């Protein structure tokens, strides 16, 4: 493998003290009628009954997730977690103009779901994978992260390591807004906006990391082919340096010891669609934790995550229609040979994903828990806004990654995540201002 920028690296190394120099088959699954029903409780002795409704890759690694004493409540099947009218109307209004361009780029997108799911034929359409990937990236997710408290923990074969990060994550959408108040600006929050999203966390603990603040811009041009795409910009404020560092990153896909998530593993895929080849592998019905009944951090800090600290088995699970897509990285530096992602067709939320190493062995398993805004407790946290009285969002509130080769993993919890947008333009301006990172420090 060659370094991505040999020349630049060489130049830099000259400054160092140390010796400077110079094709898939579709695989629809039809397991038959389930033997369980809403209200049933699945314990470890009944776990075989749900096998037909789990991804085979998940079942093969079930020892991490299912355990003596677990109590899985079966919730309603195929509940309606579809997005609110404002998103559906935008899909009707604008989807006809959206189209795939060169290198799986997206052209003429305005708002809503770019390619209506009901019109995609997974088996017959060779572009189905890329279309679904765009629908996933542009799924309904509100338009901000007003406040999500996060707790990031590290696990090694059931032991929580003495390392954690705690803080607050925020963000805001700057484009592709479907609400009528943005009609005059073609969906931009600020007229002529080049950015798509701005987001970033603030670390509050541990003490030696307190005050680290990040701000990332992702640009609209990232929807385009590689030659036209502007890389993400990230600014990081490091308190011990009392300065802000600027980073421009083409992709954030590296895996590191101690952190099993790559930056783009969050929500199963948090990357740039044109950097991958996409395939649609099939459709199936799957069980997954789609509407948690037990809160976690920051409300409930002693929630049971099983003996490995990486399980949502002790919760409510629901049967869902799912679609499976695969990405194959175009960049030879990418640590994955491919990743398979299972997506809920109704909400387009991630359910499971499976990343394979360069030798084609399963490396990392990623899965998620969710909360539905229709639940009264969650609706008090995640509220509606102008022209969106009911946010109708089935939101990821926890990501778990398991490295099935080493037995290590990470869990990120943010059970109070609200995606309602910031309630004033002034707040958005302050949030996206890089100068904010050093203020008050």
């Amino acid at each position: 493998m060659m370094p991505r920028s040999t020349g630049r690296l060489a130049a830099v190394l000259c400054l160092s003290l140390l010796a400077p120099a110079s094709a898939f088959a579709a695989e629809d699954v039809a397991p038959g009628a389930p033997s369980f029903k809403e209200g049933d409780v699945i314990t470890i002795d009944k776990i075989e009954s749900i096998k037909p409704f789990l991804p085979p890759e998940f079942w093969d690694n079930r020892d991490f997730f299912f355990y003596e004493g677990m109590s899985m409540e079966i919730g309603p099947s195929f509940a309606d977690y579809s997005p609110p009218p404002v998103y559906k109307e935008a899909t009707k209004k604008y989807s006809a103009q959206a189209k795939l361009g060169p290198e799986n780029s997206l052209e003429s997108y305005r708002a809503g779901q770019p390619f209506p799911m009901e019109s995609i034929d997974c088996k017959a359409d060779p572009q189905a994978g890329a279309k679904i990937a765009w629908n996933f990236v542009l799924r309904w997710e509100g338009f901000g992260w007003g406040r999500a408290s996060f707790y990031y923990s590290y696990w090694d074969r059931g032991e929580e390591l003495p390392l954690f990060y705690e803080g607050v994550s925020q963000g805001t959408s700057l484009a592709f807004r479907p609400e009528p108040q943005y009609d005059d600006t073609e969906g931009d929050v600020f007229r002529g906006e080049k950015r798509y999203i701005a987001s970033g966390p603030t670390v509050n603990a541990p003490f030696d990391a307190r005050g680290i603040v990040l701000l990332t811009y992702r640009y609209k041009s990232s929807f385009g082919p590689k030659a036209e795409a502007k890389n993400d910009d990230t600014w990081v404020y490091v308190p011990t340096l009392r300065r802000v560092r600027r980073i421009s990153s083409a992709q954030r896909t590296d895996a590191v010891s101690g952190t099993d998530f790559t930056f783009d593993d969050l929500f199963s895929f948090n990357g740039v669609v044109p950097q991958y080849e996409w395939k649609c592998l099939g459709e199936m019905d799957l069980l997954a934790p789609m509407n948690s009944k037990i809160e976690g951090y920051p409300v409930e800090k002693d929630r049971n995550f099983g003996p490995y600290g990486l399980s949502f088995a002790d919760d409510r699970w629901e049967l869902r229609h799912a679609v499976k897509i695969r990405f194959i990285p175009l960049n030879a530096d990418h640590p994955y040979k491919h990743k398979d992602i299972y997506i809920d067709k109704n909400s387009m939320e991630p359910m499971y994903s499976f990343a394979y190493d360069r030798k084609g062995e399963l490396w990392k398993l990623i899965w998620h828990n969710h909360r539905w805004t229709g639940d009264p407790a969650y609706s008090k946290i995640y509220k509606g806004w102008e022209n969106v009285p009911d946010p109708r969002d089935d939101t990821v509130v926890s990501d778990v990654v398991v490295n099935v080769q080493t037995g290590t993993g990470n869990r990120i919890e943010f059970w109070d995540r609200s995606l309602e947008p910031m309630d004033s333009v002034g707040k958005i301006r302050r949030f996206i201002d890089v100068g904010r990172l050093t203020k008050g420090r």
Partner: protein
Amino acid sequence: MFASPLRRMTLALVAAFAAQAVLPAGAVAEDVPDLAGIYELVGETVVEGQPDRFAISGKLVLRQNGNDCTTIVEAAMRRTGGASGPSSAALIGTGEMTLTGRKFSGKAELQSLVSQVPELDVAAPFTPRSVGPVLHSVTEGEVLADGTLILEVRSDLVGEGFTLPEGRKTTVKATRVARKATDLKKKASAP
């Protein structure tokens, strides 16, 4: 320029922990040690005549088929002495290894990764990291009586633009901690 300091990684520090080797003609594996499992790595890279020292920690997954093994390495290197380059880097990769009695040798390909903010640890979440050069490493070592692996590692960089300092030495001790990834760590029993 921001990119510069992070690229100043002392690549010498980088090591590998596995390899493919040629079984010497006539060698017979009569008593093949059972090595399969997950190992914790502890080691150090030093450079003769330089103040730089880097502690190595991480995981080695070893799968065995007789004298032939495949390896997976996920390790981190953190500065414990000196001042050049970023404070930490990560290495991930795979390799192969062959046993000859209680001696082994092999090679691996390792991808290096560094935090784009050199002062932040590679394990810090949310901080972008960049892909560094790839290292081809050759390892020789032995299996101690208690099953511990002692490895000496030599590394070369792939591609133009890098060299490694002379006089570098990487030694790593690998202690088996589990047979498989789902083996729970033993919890301390209640008093």
